[in-house]
């Protein structure tokens, strides 16, 4: 009984291999798309498309490979706080540099 409780408290259900393989295929497809799109000249948009696809890829890695999907809410709030801090310090630096 206590052994069982222990398990449910601390350990996740194993994620099946097939889920990971699907995520991996998704990542490979997105990589191909990034490389192809980067060869098309879109001006300043190129960087934003590259960053957009990279963000999509990272969310796949974070939620599936890093098991964030299975973690309790605290972990997700932590990620959100970190992203807000990033947005603040990158955003404010840009405000300073661009409108100096």
């Amino acid at each position, binding site marked *: 009984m206590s052994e069982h409780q222990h398990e449910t*408290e*601390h*350990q*996740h259900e*194993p*994620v*099946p*291999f097939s889920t*990971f*393989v699907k*995520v*991996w295929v998704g*990542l*490979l497809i997105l*990589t191909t798309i*990034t*490389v192809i799109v*980067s*060869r098309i*000249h879109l001006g300043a948009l*190129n*960087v934003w498309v*590259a*960053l957009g*696809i*990279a963000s999509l*890829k*990272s969310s796949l*890695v*974070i939620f*599936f*490979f*890093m*098991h964030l999907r299975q*973690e*309790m809410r*605290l*972990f997700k709030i*932590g*990620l959100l706080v*970190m992203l807000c*801090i*990033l947005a603040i*310090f*990158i955003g404010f*630096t*840009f405000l300073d*540099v*661009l409108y100096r």
Partner: protein
Amino acid sequence: MSIEHRDDTGARFGMWLFLYTEVILFSGLFLLYAMALSKFPDQFSVGSHRLNIYFGTINTLVLLTSSLTIAMAVTAIQRGRIKLTLGLCAATVGMGIVFLINKYFEWSAEIEHGIYPGSHHLAEQGSGVAAFFNLYFFTLGLHGLHVLIGGTLITVVAVLTAKGKVTSERYTLLENSALYWHLVDLIWIFLFPLYYLII
């Protein structure tokens, strides 16, 4: 009966907090990159064109696949399949080594062509190109160091698994090393398009 004090969730959360500080470290370099790019857009494109896109793409595929194998290793240990876990750890470390070998050939070729921080060749090309390559060598070098650390960590955990210290009941060490490895992959996901694919 001895009471064991352990908090796997706490250990994982601690790892996540550490990974956030790693992200902050790299985002400082990302910020430098962004500032330099907005200052020298044309020279950054010149610099990016001199990088070998094949090395970059192959290393991306290698790292993504190694992330898959270490994620599968966590599932394998949860199911108590020790041999499979060890095999998947070995595959991950192997791909990390392939990544670093590629990097060695890539950097050797660049250094041979006079591309390295502080070289005369770069100084002649203008400060934008020099800035691009300084950032390139520093950021990707720091990332390579992380690959080395992650690989060492996974090797140590694999040895502990073989010795029966990491089991299907107690595998937080493997989980946390896997988290670190995924972070290395995550950073590369951003570095690859920013350095290799800028037109």
